[in-house]
């Protein structure tokens, strides 16, 4: 068994007096794809944002270790420099920056053009385009994935990478996940896509801010699909 890359133990997050995550125990090993499934509002994106160190997301209890280091003590940019990268669920526009500028930001390890090709975007057409509101949601999401690939991360957090993607491009997005794994990265894959989740090595189901089931993806996905949940008895485990 590969060593743990990311370890969450008894993690609790409260924001504005509301407990959004509670007692989370989760381990992601090097080179492993770990799918996280759960209904809207169950805490998936909260967990992603907390791991990345987004403003306002602080733990009230528990610990997160990344390669043995206390991750929560590090600022966001330091987490990125240590190899954690995220493809945001709702990427923002950045006025005045081209796609090439964006993919060239930070400690990049792969050329922007190659990363765009990997997500099915023609570099000749896209590299010099502004990263503004002129891009569709699907295009922006693919660029976000390309931006993550350019960093060559050790831990890739993919927050709903296939949402809003057209059917013909889905295979390219799906192919990026095993490519990350082959490159040695671990992937925390937040998704509603059953087929995508089934390709993971491990899956966890989250409900009401708690991990209610972890294990083989087939089992976890089937339980989620059939609303088998020890926490809500299926009442909240649907979108």
């Amino acid at each position, binding site marked *: 068994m590969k060593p743990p890359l990311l370890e969450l133990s008894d993690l609790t997050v409260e924001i504005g007096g509301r407990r959004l995550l509670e007692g989370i125990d989760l381990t992601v090993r090097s080179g492993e794809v770990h799918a996280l499934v759960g209904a809207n509002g169950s805490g998936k994106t909260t967990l992603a944002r907390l791991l*990345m*160190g*987004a*403003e306002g997301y602080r733990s009230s209890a528990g610990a997160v270790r990344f390669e043995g280091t206390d991750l929560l003590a590090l*600022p*966001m*940019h330091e*987490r*990125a*420099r240590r190899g954690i*990268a*995220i493809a*945001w669920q709702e*990427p*923002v526009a*950045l*006025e*005045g*920056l081209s796609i090439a*500028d964006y993919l060239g*930001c*930070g*400690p990049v390890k792969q050329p922007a053009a190659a990363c765009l090709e990997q997500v099915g975007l023609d570099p000749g057409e896209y590299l010099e385009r502004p990263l503004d509101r002129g891009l569709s949601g699907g295009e922006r999401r693919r660029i976000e994935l390309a*931006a993550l690939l350019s*960093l060559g991360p050790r831990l890739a957090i993919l927050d709903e990478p296939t949402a809003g993607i057209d059917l013909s491009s889905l295979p390219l997005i799906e192919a990026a996940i095993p490519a990350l794994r082959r490159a040695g990265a671990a992937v925390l894959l937040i998704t509603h896509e059953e087929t995508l989740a089934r390709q993971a090595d491990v899956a966890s189901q989250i409900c009401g801010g708690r991990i209610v089931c972890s294990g083989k993806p087939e089992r976890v996905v089937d339980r989620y699909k059939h609303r088998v949940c020890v926490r809500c008895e299926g009442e909240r485990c649907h979108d």
Partner: protein
Amino acid sequence: MTELRALRDAFAMIGEDPAEVLAPDTAHLIAHGHQVISSQSIPGVRLETHGEEDCIKVRLDIAPGGNIEKPIHLCFGLFERFGTQNVDLVLTLGAGARATVWSHCLFTLPLAARHAMTARVELGPDAELRSNETHYHGLSGLIEVIPHAIVRVGPGARYIADFSLVQGCVGTLDIDYAVAVEEGGVAELTSKVYGHRSDRIRIREAVSLDGAGARGLVKTRVAVEDDASAEIVGATYGNAPGARGHVDCMEIVRGRATARAVPEVSVSHPEAKVTHEAAIGSVDARQLETLMARGLAPDDAVDRIILGMLR
């Protein structure tokens, strides 16, 4: 000539090729203070200049139907420690004429200076003028820039104006543009300014959509830091059927700087429509975290966002 050499050096410093500006097929005016150093007309572009004791008078006429391929360069500046430059500009484009005017305002050397321009611009029917005015200042913070313009955009004409002052300290800036747009005409005004230290920035840009189907956009991007201040008035008046206007003001404030945006929109015809959006504050948190999540330190991420906005 010393000034010409200084100007060549200044051009090299800002990345412009002086040979391009001085080429025989390029219309240009080069002025130091109230002294005209070089002036050149070309077929289709008549440039008359007259340097007086306290002012440079410039008349620039683009012949009707003329399509001037190479940009017309207007280079203003001061190459002394102190000085004043007043410019009185009359610019006309005949019917169907098309031209691009690049105004380079070089004030990197003066410690204290005043540059005031009064411009009257007339675009004939279906003419198109692209005007790019870029300022380069030093760090003294004692430069006073006062560009005032009255612009008439004729029927079906297009007036696209960009003003940029993002290098060096602004000093004091007082822009006042009033643009009247006739039937089917278009006016787009974009200003980008970065204020530091104790810079004072005041921008008033007003577009009056007077003709049916006239279009207007007033776009302002200002960043201020330290003790700088900015007051932006973006005004658009919809006075005719089918007129459409938009005011878009974004200001980023850092440190003790202050900013104020006053969108002024009014409609006097039931079939006209004018919209506005204004955002003032610190850098957008989500933009910031998007760049920090790529390993940029907070200050570097803020700089990248501001420079992107001002690009």
